[in-house]
């Protein structure tokens, strides 16, 4: 099978899998190729093709390191939102984002530890985030009562368009922060 044919099949696979995303493992299975490097080449060629072609309305989003998703080009979103049947995802509240960022930076973490940082009960927010599959239970802590530990999921990375948690901005060191809050 030549390279172009492989591109075409992967392109179709991205379309078929849609929102759920396609992993390199999926492509290995479909193309019956075990060489990850070759697969990445095919994907990158596709990404480049989409980028270069101004008459193409789609792009490939890479998230969670080895997962890819076909989406409409972001610059065109205003046109699509004219459609009344577009079900836009409800944006997360500030409180949810705060909770998520704590879990992203400090996970695996217990709910009590998150609550301690935020100074608020996070019961309902945890429930919502679990329902949206943005966080997941990854076992029990050794603390008294064996509370559950949580971390963020691949859906979290997809939602915030991140390749991995390494993409998160670094939290500044404390001494600088201290000045920032209290030195004004």
């Amino acid at each position, binding site marked *: 099978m030549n390279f172009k044919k492989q591109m075409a099949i992967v392109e179709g696979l991205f379309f078929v899998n849609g929102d759920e995303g396609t992993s390199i493992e999926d492509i290995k299975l479909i193309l019956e190729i075990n060489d990850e490097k070759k697969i990445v080449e095919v994907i990158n060629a596709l990404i480049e093709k989409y980028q270069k072609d101004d008459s193409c309305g789609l792009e490939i989003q890479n998230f969670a390191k080895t997962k890819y998703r076909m989406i409409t080009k972001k610059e065109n979103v205003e046109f699509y939102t004219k459609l009344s049947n577009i079900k836009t995802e409800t944006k997360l509240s500030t409180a949810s*984002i705060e909770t998520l960022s704590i879990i992203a930076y400090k996970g695996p973490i217990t709910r009590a530890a998150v609550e301690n940082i935020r100074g608020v009960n996070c019961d309902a927010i945890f429930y919502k985030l679990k329902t949206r599959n943005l966080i997941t239970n990854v076992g029990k802590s050794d603390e008294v009562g064996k509370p559950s530990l949580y971390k963020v999921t691949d859906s979290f990375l997809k939602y915030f368009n991140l390749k991995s948690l390494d993409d998160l901005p670094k939290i500044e060191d404390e001494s600088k922060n201290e000045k920032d809050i209290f030195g004004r």
Partner: protein
Amino acid sequence: MSNLKERWNQVELENFTGPLDLLLQMIKDKQVSILEINLLELSNQYLEYIKKIADKDIELASEYLVMAAYFLELKSKFLIPKEEVLVDGDYEEDQRKELLNRLLEYHKIKEVTEFFKEQQIESLKGLSKAKSIIKITRIDDEKLPLAPNNINLDKFSKIFLRAIEKSKFRTVETNILTTTEVSPEEIANEIKKHLIKHSIDKIKLEDLIEQKDFSLRMLVATFMAVLDLASKKLINIFQEGDDIIVENISKGE
């Protein structure tokens, strides 16, 4: 000060994600170091807001109340004459440090939420479609590790509901709590014996539940026992019209 107070009165608490958020904003607006904060004044401000929102959202208010109480505790500790707390001389400093640390920790998180908000807005611009359904994977009945399902689950649950309804009328003492422990194993044994003793080949599940003491109190255990017996191939469960039939297939061991 009066200016600040005026400003604070316009602040809606809904704009804050929690008491620490509000505290952080207060400190920023006052442009003072946390080490110079008048805790009593801060507590008073807090209480004012709490009064304002208590009618609207008591749960929200309670979070802030906890924080206000924390300030008051801190303040009262600071008011204790130094000589008397010599044994615990560092306590005051420790408390301040703890609050400071909590605030710093929280502030760090606050600083990055902007990043997430921006990423969210950007990310929501790319629309994608749901995964296409190509084929529904069908596994041959023979390959299933389970017995073929010949029971309509809706009907199955309805039968249980009906049994519960019936037992409600039969039992007078529904408000008496008994704490007899029942185990599905025991009940499974009893069901087995019952079927053998009365040489029952087939019986409606509904009727079985109503036999003896297999009812209400032990409904869950009975339910599990029936499933357990079925999995051990001692009984067979199948559907006949609107009824679920339990068939005794044990060889009378």
